[in-house]
């Protein structure tokens, strides 16, 4: 009997803890959602009233004019990073998850590789940008151009891609691998058809972060890509490349209202690009995961 009466205060204490926990998780969620909404709305509210579609089809004239050159430049940079950093990062992740740990002597391998990745991801982007400027643009006489920009941005995002690829591959159930092995599937075939497929959501997430960084970085690009009011020439060297964040940053610092409009337009285009990327990646993931264990 005494046990029963004692349990009542405990119950209310448990309920209090439960709701306190719930409230704090909600608060944390708001803490993430509020600034995101604020930023997106801030950009939309300032850019949309003055929006003109001609922005997408006219070249920049510094603090006025359109953003065609910057839009194309950003797309070229993002595409280049996707190809360069994407292939290096995914291959590195596959190595770490699938190949590095089967060493015969039983010692952990891939340690140096992992350390290098951590070091790389810890560098401030402006330092990498400056290194790129000194070593590539000046040292190798490449000038402000596409290749040094791609190399430096790729150095920044390869760690994300490699890490997310590795952890996605490690989460693939052993069941799948054993099933594939037991059928006599060649290792590479099983990797492509079974393992990578179920690791795809994680890999796509890594690539998405990489693309968002490639589209949104400013500092390393100032040092490597330079700036220009003309369209990218697709030459890898000696030709500066325009990009949207440059105009967001420089035109916002100008005193004229005209320049501010360009700045907000560039920001809006970037926001729309990132949101589109998110949607596209979700579509890819749901399409490829419709036969997965978690989807049902």
């Amino acid at each position, binding site marked *: 009997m005494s046990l029963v009466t004692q349990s009542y205060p405990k119950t209310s204490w448990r309920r209090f803890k439960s709701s306190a926990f719930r409230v704090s998780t909600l608060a944390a969620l708001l803490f993430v959602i509020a600034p995101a909404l604020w930023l997106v709305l801030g950009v939309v509210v300032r850019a949309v009233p003055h929006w003109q579609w001609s922005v997408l089809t006219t070249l920049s004239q510094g603090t006025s004019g359109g953003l065609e050159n910057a839009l194309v430049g950003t797309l070229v940079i993002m595409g280049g990073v996707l190809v360069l950093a994407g292939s290096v990062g995914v291959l590195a992740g596959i190595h770490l998850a699938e190949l590095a740990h*089967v060493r015969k002597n*039983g010692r952990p391998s891939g340690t140096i590789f992992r350390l290098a990745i951590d070091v790389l991801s810890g560098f401030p982007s402006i330092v990498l940008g400056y290194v790129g400027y000194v070593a590539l643009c000046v040292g190798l006489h490449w000038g402000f151009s596409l290749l040094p920009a791609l190399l430096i941005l790729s150095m920044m995002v390869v760690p994300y891609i490699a890490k997310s690829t590795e952890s996605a591959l490690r989460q693939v*159930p052993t*069941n*799948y691998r*054993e*099933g*594939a*092995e*037991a*059928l*006599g*599937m*060649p290792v590479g*075939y*099983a990797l492509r*058809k*079974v393992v990578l*497929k*179920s690791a795809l959501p994680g890999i796509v997430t890594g690539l998405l972060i990489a693309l968002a960084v490639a589209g949104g970085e400013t500092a390393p690009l100032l040092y490597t890509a330079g700036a220009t009011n003309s369209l990218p020439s697709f030459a890898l060297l000696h030709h500066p490349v325009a990009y949207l964040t440059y105009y967001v940053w420089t035109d916002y610092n100008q005193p004229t209202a005209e320049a501010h409009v360009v700045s907000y337009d560039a920001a809006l285009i970037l926001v729309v690009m990132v949101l589109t990327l998110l949607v596209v990646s979700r579509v890819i993931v749901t399409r490829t*995961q*419709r*036969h*997965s*264990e978690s*989807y*049902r």
Partner: protein
Amino acid sequence: MDESRKTDISPDEIESVLEVLDPDSNRPRDIIQTDGLNLRFGETSILSGVNMNFPRGTITALIGPTGSGKSTFLRTLNRMNDKVRGFRHEGDVKLEGRSIWGADQDLLDIRRRVGMLFQRPNPFPMSIKDNVVAGVKAHGIAKGKQLDVVAETRLREVGLWDAVKDRLNDSPYRLSGGQQQLLCLARALAVGPEVLLLDEPTSALDPLSTESVETLMRTLTPALTLIVVTHNLGQARRVSDNTMFFYEGRLVEHGPTKSLFDQPREADTARYVNGLMG
């Protein structure tokens, strides 16, 4: 008088002619043999001194308490242990008289010939049809329209066709656990194995699904040779021709299932099959 000189045909030639006439005449009666097989992980001995023959077309049950080494033994037969860290073996396993570790052997072909079904159903994250033909595609055995035929044949073989014929492109994870296991069986059968290793194939299934898997196992012989690890003594009695009893890293006793259960020679076997141990 020497036969070969009289007919001017060498014994080798006669052999080869006979082989052409009857490809089975020369095949060993036992499809798998183990010779003095010792298995260890690092310094820990898992199993020692296993000499065993598995006659073609029979079902052999591997029984024994957890940790007795029977699963390790099973997984050695298609070299699933090779990649496990610290795994070492002494002695030999022969598939149709040839060492499975021989330099002339192709690991992938051994795994095709010696298939495996696991404790938990493990369909791949692809459609039901793609699951059945996954191995077939990987080995390039069939392609295009042939794959549909393979899928239907194997699904019929395991009795799953009527249940899934209208949703071949669905996710396999919408099937029940028992159906998933039958799907995995269809997938294993599709590559045309000679031996099937089953590692507690029904321990995650309900009694009805268990029964359908057991019935299937019976129909698969004598075309296939089955070796099944089971903790279910009733299952061993129901389906197997021969039984091997493992205990503390040794093969304690083996023989025809009925005599092993009814007149065990060893005291440990008697205690185990009578439910006094394990």
